[in-house]
């Protein structure tokens, strides 16, 4: 065999080794499916909104074990996350950087839909001076006819609108919040017991 052929074969084999260890093995071997199956409906759409807007640039979705960080002590999860809890998801934003809290279980600790709407519209009304950007483009300003819509944001002070208008979440914001609420990672065994 000539040298270039040997090299090409070697590179192909090494790439294949990486492939089978890091893609094929996890796909076929890592744990049984989690409870509840894949996210569907709004939550699934919301996962795509989460990815498209780069929330993962600042937020992770991994709870590390207690010996590898303060994740559990901070209340980001009761235990480390395990493979079955991600089993059915198509968007797996484990994340790269923590400029904000971990969101692996945020749906467990924050359960109020309106709180999320307010957070995404203007994070600084909830966390003054926060680094989190505001996502106003996920909201619509619509005329106020009679009583405000149930989802209209309570805006006051400098954020207040001209009279006759209200701000409501667009479908994207609703989907994103549905997704955030769905983020409750429970291992399969425990989910079985609680049923």
């Amino acid at each position, binding site marked *: 065999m000539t040298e270039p052929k040997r090299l090409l074969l070697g590179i192909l084999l*090494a790439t294949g080794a*990486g*492939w089978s260890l890091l893609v094929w093995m996890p796909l076929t071997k890592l744990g049984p499916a989690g409870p509840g199956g894949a996210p569907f409906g709004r939550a699934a759409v919301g996962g795509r909104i989460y990815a498209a807007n*780069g929330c993962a640039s600042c937020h992770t979705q991994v709870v590390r074990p207690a010996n590898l960080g303060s994740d559990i002590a901070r209340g980001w999860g009761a235990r480390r996350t395990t493979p079955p809890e991600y089993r059915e998801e198509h968007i797996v934003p484990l994340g790269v950087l923590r400029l904000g809290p971990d969101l692996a279980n945020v749906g467990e600790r924050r359960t109020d839909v309106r709180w999320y709407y307010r957070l995404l519209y203007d994070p600084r009304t909830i966390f003054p001076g926060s680094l989190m950007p505001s996502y106003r483009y996920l909201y619509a300003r619509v005329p106020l006819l009679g009583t405000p819509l149930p989802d209209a944001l309570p805006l006051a002070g400098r954020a207040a609108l001209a009279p006759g208008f209200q701000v409501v979440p667009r479908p994207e914001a609703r989907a994103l919040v549905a997704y955030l609420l769905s983020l409750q990672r429970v291992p399969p065994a425990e989910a079985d017991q609680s049923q």
Partner: protein
Amino acid sequence: MAETSECEETPVRAGTRDAVSSLRVPVLGLVVPAAVWLWVASILALLGSLKLVDPRFLGTWGWLTFGRISPAAFLSFVYGFGIPMGLCAVLWAVTKGGRLPLPGGRWFLASSFLWNLGLWSGITGVLAGESRSLSWLGLPTFSLPSLGMAYLLSAGWLVAVLVRRWEESSLASRFLLLGLVWIPWAGGAAALWLHDPSVRGVAIGSLEWWFNDGLLYAGLGAFALGAMHLLLPGFLGRPASFAGLGRWAFWAWVLFANLAGMAHLVGGPFPLWMVSTGVSSRFLLWAAAVAIGLGFWAAARGAPAEGKQWDPGWHFLRFGMGSFLVAAGLGAVLVLPAWSRYVHYTVLEEAQLTLFLYGFLGMTFFALLYTILPRVLGRSWPSVGLAKAHFLLSSYGISFLAGLLAVGGLFQGVALDNAEVPIHEVILSLLPFLRSAAAPAMALLAAHAVFGLHLLWLLVESGANRREGEKAALPGVAMEGARTP
């Protein structure tokens, strides 16, 4: 400049001019758009860092939200600048430094056109909110066919020519071959699998990181190492030392670059054996990097002292190799569980990435450009001052950027590890570093602007030069690298 000394070794022969001019179109087809992408990347990176100075900066326009521009900046650098520069290095290698003609130069133009078309649509797509947030796999689906076709068009051709003109036991050719074939193999496989609905769950995470580290080490890193080995004889008059060690390092590089990605997932939802494979692979990559570095510095030490003229190529190359060693070392040390506990998910990891991308890849590719463009265009760089300014701005910019992020990351990591410190205060302790990082980011943008201007000047001058040359029709007018005042 070093070119002058090489000119003496390889006197301009009849036919060489044709060979060099057959490179002009393909090289410029790669370099000019790459310079534009470099600008795009630096502007996006600067906007991103300004958004961290004040999140209200530029308002709340979806297209410019932090989570979209920061991946867009990285993607434009890697796919807009890095990969075309890698192909440029291969072009230089297969024509033996412009001594052999390049068949099929027009295909490269077509390929470059398709590539840039795909990339513009891809980056626009990321900014428009079409990304799946998968790091280096984050370009939207609709941009992939064009990118894939473009890459196959030029890389398929280049592999064929590289193999036909194979140089036995040349390290440069080995690394370049690795870069050329790894990217389409792995990229194609990853893109196909990601679009298969049965692929889901944590496998997507490990797929993402297999590709991320592979692209950095086995793809672009291999291109840059190939370029380094290609350029070294021109600067020093001899190849890297310890060739046997170098070949060993190459094989280590091939294998472990494919396994290193798991190191990012320390503490993640993966079995221990996967994570420890990743961590040990990062260490073995570091060992290979040290072996390559030894070959480089040993050759450089034995070289004659620098001539009286300041050679930009050599300075960029040295800085690139320095960053390479530091980045590879950090890449290994930071993933050790004892460290990872503190520094994982902090900006210290961004510091390592900055060093690798801008310090190693960027600077090495600049060394390539400073060396080959004068020969391809038959005209030396018009201004030593501008080259110096480019070098100083980028070397200080990169060092300060990486330094600030590294120290900031340590503060962030120690504070994050203490559960008593609320997240808001963690970020407060990090903010001074993030805010000051906007200054080196600006220096980098200025450096790339200086480079762009210098390139433009060179192109304009060489265009004028060429017309004169054609009129006079004198052989040997375009003396390589010889600056006639």
